[in-house]
């Protein structure tokens, strides 16, 4: 009897509390609505001119018409910006870089409140967190993990006035007027790092630990091998996947297995990166970094690496959205930025002591080349692992590079899990 009373008692009291509070909050939110309307009005002229420019966007047309009528585009005049991260914001890797980008936005826009949520799973829970950010007043949301795309599109569909933009994935169908994806051409600095690795290796075997065979990872692995191959015709890249963005124990074992196969330069595509870096240093091997500058973890073995610098790109997306110009902008698409545009958010880390001046010169030369109109790490002909032609002669554009990187190039040793 006693226990049957307990739970209903708690829940009843909690819900009473809730009802009381919710009526409170309804009162307090009434006031800000008015001020927001005022802001929206002042934004109107900007949005109207933008509407003309965007009319060519067939997909965007409907929502844009609505936006033009009210005088605002999605995200316009937002007081808050939300960021969701799949992992902890202190992972010394991917999520930390994205978090630091969000803090750069906070510094650049002192009037904006930046909301951040970490450990947001790539499932329906992400939908709920974004919904909360929106009801807290955010009209611009960055979903920063590859797997956040499904929930991001779901939220975008439910809130046409909110910009929901996703980092790193690719929208295959029509891009909604208030959504898009953005990413750097990550494989470009990885290609340059591959040159350093190809020069540094004495065994001609490089190792790559990765999480999942997603296109950007496959492009990285291929670019790493191609960069190394451009300076070392005998080089191979051995790959091991961990099926997990961060399981340090699996990473430790993967590194050991690669070293056992005579790999002497190792790199990775994992969210947390310390374990592999330290494993290399302890084993007296060399390491190429990813996500963050970890040269302090490997004083002897650090070759070079690539790291994120999201601040400028995030800030520009925020500014575009605040101005009501998101729809029809370059971000209202699958936006990729690389060396050619001079704004790649993925940049080279510093060199370790073993990289000599001749190698640095080679890297500079390659960088100039792929930054030019007729350069790409995937300049054809490039052969796939099975010997078939992957890229024909010529320079592929960013979209082609992304779509063709579903198999490994020749010289990569390892299987892509079926799928």
């Amino acid at each position: 009897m006693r226990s049957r009373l307990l739970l209903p008692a708690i829940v009843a009291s909690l819900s009473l509390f809730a009802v009381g509070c919710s009526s409170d909050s309804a009162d307090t939110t009434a006031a800000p609505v008015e001020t927001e309307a005022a802001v929206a009005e002042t934004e109107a002229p900007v949005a109207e001119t933008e509407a003309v420019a965007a009319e060519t966007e067939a997909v965007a047309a409907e929502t844009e018409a609505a936006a033009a009528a009210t005088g605002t585009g999605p995200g316009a005049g937002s007081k808050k910006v939300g960021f969701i991260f799949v992992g902890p914001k202190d992972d010394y890797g991917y999520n930390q870089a994205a978090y630091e980008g969000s803090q750069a936005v906070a510094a650049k826009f002192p009037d904006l409140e930046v909301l951040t949520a970490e450990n947001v799973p790539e499932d329906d829970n992400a939908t709920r967190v974004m919904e909360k950010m929106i009801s807290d007043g955010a009209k611009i949301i960055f979903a920063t993990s590859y797997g956040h795309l499904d929930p991001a599109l779901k939220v975008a569909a439910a809130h046409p006035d909110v910009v929901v933009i996703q980092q790193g994935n690719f929208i295959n169908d029509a891009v909604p007027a208030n959504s898009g994806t953005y990413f750097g051409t990550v494989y470009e600095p990885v290609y340059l790092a591959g040159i350093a690795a190809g020069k540094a290796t004495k065994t001609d075997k490089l190792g790559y630990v990765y999480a999942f065979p997603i296109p950007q990872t496959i492009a990285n692995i291929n670019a790493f091998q191609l960069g190394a191959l451009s300076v070392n015709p005998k080089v191979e890249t051995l790959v091991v996947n961990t099926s997990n963005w961060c399981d340090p124990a699996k990473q430790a074992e993967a590194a050991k297995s690669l070293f056992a196969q005579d790999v002497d330069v190792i790199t990775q595509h994992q969210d947390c990166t310390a374990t592999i870096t330290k494993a290399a240093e302890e084993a007296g091997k060399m390491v190429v970094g990813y996500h963050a500058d970890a040269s302090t973890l490997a004083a002897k073995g650090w070759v070079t690496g690539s790291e994120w610098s999201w601040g400028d790109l995030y800030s520009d997306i925020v500014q575009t959205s605040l101005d009501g110009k998101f729809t029809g902008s370059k971000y209202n698409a699958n936006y990729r930025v690389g060396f050619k545009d001079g704004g790649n958010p993925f940049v080279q880390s510093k060199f370790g002591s073993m990289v000599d001046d001749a190698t640095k010169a080679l890297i500079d030369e390659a960088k100039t080349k792929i930054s030019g109109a007729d350069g790409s790490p995937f300049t054809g002909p490039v052969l796939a692992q099975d010997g078939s032609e992957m890229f024909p002669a010529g320079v592929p554009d960013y979209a082609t590079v992304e779509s063709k990187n579903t198999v490994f190039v020749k010289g990569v040793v390892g299987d892509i899990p079926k799928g």
Partner: protein
Amino acid sequence: MSMFVEVLTGGVRGGTSILYAALGESVSERAGVVNLGTEGSILAGALAGYAIAAETGHPWLGVLAGAFAGGLLALVHAFIVLHRGGNQLATGLVILFLGLGLTSLFGVSYVQALAPTFRAVEIPVVGSIPVVGEILFRQDPLVYLSYVMVPALWWFISRSRWGVILRASGERTEVLLANGRRVLPVQYAAVVAGGMLAGIGGVHLSTAYTKAWFENMAQGRGFVAVAVVMFAARQPFKVAGGAYLFGAALALSPALQARGYGINQFALDAVPYLTTLIVLIVLGRRRNADLPEGLSKVFQASPSG
């Protein structure tokens, strides 16, 4: 290095954190207390060990800190189940959430910290024996400590007077009472000792195996340890075998991949659990009869149909 040696070396290395935790769980279960919160104690040990090693510069102080933190969390479990009558399985799960939450909360600043770590040391003479030496005697000091711990615990449980008392606390409390001993202190000691061992397992995970702290880094190894204990019927040598089996299954995938063979990791991942299930089925009746009386109350609230 042959693949056989590589996988078994990896099995010992990767199985050690599971081994410590499973030894701890064995001690606890001998006293009639199941602790599903082992995962929490591993995490507590992993963080405390790494943090103290980073702060003091001494990995061995990290081991002490890890044992302390793992034991402290187990103490909460002991208090709730022994003193307050909480259900063991449910309380253990809560302890897991508590450990996960607290370590994530306080571990943030140690993700980037540099700590001195345990390195592999080859033991002279035996380390140069082919195969056996390569697998067993080129490991880190905490692995060697576990080699001592296994026979020591076996002796303690099966041969020592204290072992009799421990087992009696989980099986025949009336014998203890008749001998004028109190049951509770023995059970408390066993649960806390179990947590301390799991904590050392955590220290191995962070300061020897992966050389990093990361939230939720145990990734289910505490549950694996509980499964190993079922498989091994709380006997230290069998526990070691089970832990190494799990470790080897984890080491097999990268070893195959680095040689260019594609592999679906998850078929391998299921092997240890299936093996445990099959072992339990094959040895079913007998194994069930081995279950300490106190434990059968936890595992099955009513006698089997």
